[in-house]
């Protein structure tokens, strides 16, 4: 009988897993969460602070540098080039995922690295988005030929960001569930990454052709919508081709009014939770259920995939339930709006939590994975022994970060995310309830939700690979 316990997709890419956070740090992290929570509650401010963004443009010269047509074309070309390299190395390169450019680029540099860039610099993915660049180039070429392509369909606004939610969940399913047997010839192979990239390119371009470029980028193109959500945490924003700076966090407050936004941020938290849980406390249950499926005749790989799919769905539902309980509780406060409006009103307060989860779980992966990306994977993208830039034999230096440093960064990220979420929730409560007393009572419920999410995050860190 073979064991179904397989190393995680990420461990395979860099050959290293984080150590679980030790008990003493877990306890201190949890205490710190409670203490900072009361600090935030006791410093209750009485008027909203983040609803006005105070956006101010930078000097025109700086704006031109960032938003000029040349920059746009250049950034778009880089995006298209990188997409091409992913497809090429996926199709032509080695099937050993850790030695092929495609896997590390898609799952670490693109999926996680772009989140970091978005939080710091704003919506940079818009500039580098290869699908947007292709569509823009198409429109430009059509204009040269004297035609103006028009979107044949009106995007149904009711759908909101739901297509993007489906896209993000599908991406993570592909990474964690389809890739469950992520070792060598089963599960995710560079070849399947290339195929998925081609299929997704069809989806992105098709949507833009049907509904218009900007509409689809804002609603259906999953990565644009996902990275744009994180860019709301940034202070930089381009408006009408002018680069400017806005009040920190202010852009989050208007984010969730579009349908599907709450689902997107909950899915973000759920994705990371599932990845942590499947390596930790859910691992045994997933294995047992998969074994049961195998006993009734399913093949080994699909047993684990079906089992993981089920637990992934349960995890997403559990995260949604946790938030729902908090909102339900808040609803009992006098003067509350309808349940659905209340749920939407506080959705943006979860963006910092979603970011904190990502940092806590993937910080070390990005730190070590990027060393591989810019050394041997750059010089030898196909893993066939070539050495384009002379860095093919340089490896990852695993001694650059001690396990202790990683622990502090993980726990620190959760605490900072927790405080930021609480601040946003308190600010929103003042707007929703008007009257400070009701606002602060309602925040006991949000505090409960935030503490639950943060302690779940800590718990997952203390469990991973246990």
């Amino acid at each position, binding site marked *: 009988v073979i064991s179904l316990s397989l190393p995680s997709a990420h461990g395979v890419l860099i*050959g290293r897993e984080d150590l679980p956070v030790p008990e*003493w740090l877990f306890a201190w992290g949890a205490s710190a969460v409670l203490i900072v929570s*009361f600090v935030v509650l006791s*410093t209750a401010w009485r008027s909203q602070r983040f609803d006005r963004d105070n956006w101010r443009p930078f000097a025109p010269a700086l704006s031109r540098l960032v938003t000029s047509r040349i920059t746009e074309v250049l950034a778009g070309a880089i995006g298209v080039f990188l997409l091409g390299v992913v497809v090429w190395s996926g199709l032509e390169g080695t099937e050993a995922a850790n030695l092929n450019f495609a896997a590390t680029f898609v799952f670490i540099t693109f999926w996680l690295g772009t989140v970091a860039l978005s939080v710091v610099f704003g919506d940079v993915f818009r500039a580098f988005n290869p699908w947007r660049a292709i569509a823009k180039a198409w429109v430009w070429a059509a204009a040269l030929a004297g035609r103006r392509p028009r979107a044949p369909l009106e995007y149904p606004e009711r759908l909101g960001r739901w297509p993007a939610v489906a896209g993000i969940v599908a991406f993570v399913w592909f990474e964690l569930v389809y890739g469950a047997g992520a070792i060598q010839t089963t599960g995710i192979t560079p070849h399947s990454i290339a195929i998925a990239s081609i299929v997704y390119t069809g989806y992105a371009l098709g949507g833009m052709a049907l509904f218009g470029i900007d509409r689809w980028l804002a609603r259906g193109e999953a990565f644009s919508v996902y990275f744009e959500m994180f860019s709301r945490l940034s202070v930089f924003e381009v408006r009408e081709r002018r680069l400017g700076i806005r009040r920190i966090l202010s852009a989050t407050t208007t984010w969730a009014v579009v349908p599907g936004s709450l689902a997107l941020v909950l899915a973000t938290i759920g994705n990371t939770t599932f990845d942590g849980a499947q390596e930790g406390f859910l691992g045994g249950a997933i294995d047992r259920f998969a074994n049961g499926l195998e006993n009734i005749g399913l093949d080994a790989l699909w047993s684990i995939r079906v089992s993981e799919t089920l637990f992934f769905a349960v995890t997403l539902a559990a995260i949604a339930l946790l938030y729902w309980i908090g909102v339900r509780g808040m609803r009992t406060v006098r003067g509350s709006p309808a349940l659905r409006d209340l749920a939407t009103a506080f959705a943006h307060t979860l963006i910092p939590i979603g970011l904190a989860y990502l940092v806590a779980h993937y910080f070390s992966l990005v730190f070590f994975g990027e060393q591989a990306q810019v050394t041997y994977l750059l010089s030898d993208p196909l893993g066939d022994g070539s050495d384009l830039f002379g860095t093919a034999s340089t*490896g990852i230096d695993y001694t650059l970060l001690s*396990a202790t440093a990683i622990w502090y960064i993980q726990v620190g990220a959760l605490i900072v995310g927790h405080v930021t979420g609480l601040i946003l929730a308190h600010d929103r409560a003042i707007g929703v309830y008007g009257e400070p007393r009701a606002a602060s009572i309602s925040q006991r419920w949000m505090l409960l939700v935030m503490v639950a999410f943060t302690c779940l995050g800590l718990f997952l860190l203390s469990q991973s690979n246990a």
Partner: protein
Amino acid sequence: MEPRGRAIAVAAGAAVVAVALFLVLRDSGGSDTTSKPVATNEAPAKKEPPKEKRKPPEAGTETIEFKNGAPVGGVQEIEVSSGDEVSLRMTSDVPADVHVHGYELEGEAAPGDPATFDFRATAEGEFEVEAHEVTGGHEEEGVQVASVTVTP
């Protein structure tokens, strides 16, 4: 204004006390991971290895048996502290290449001729040890035979 000012003062005080407690109690709380100071001032006590409980058999060598394409007794979990000297040995019933990830060590095992690794655990984390059977001159798909966990 005044009650609010007091609340902030109390909260700030609580935070300071918590940080101070943390700094004082951190090491005693982490009694099972106190190897860190040992690792930094190991220079004087070079002759006698201080960790007697971890290494009972075979003079501290961890042995993995690779048989019928799998490690005997499942994936071997090897735990060492940062800075330790590690000795790994893998016996095999077929010709196989062995790879310690992270430390990027490679060795060859054959029936009656185990692969051996001696290295110092400098990088912390959990690292995979993988074996590839060699048939007809080329490597088969890798099988995880052990994990080396290096704790601070």
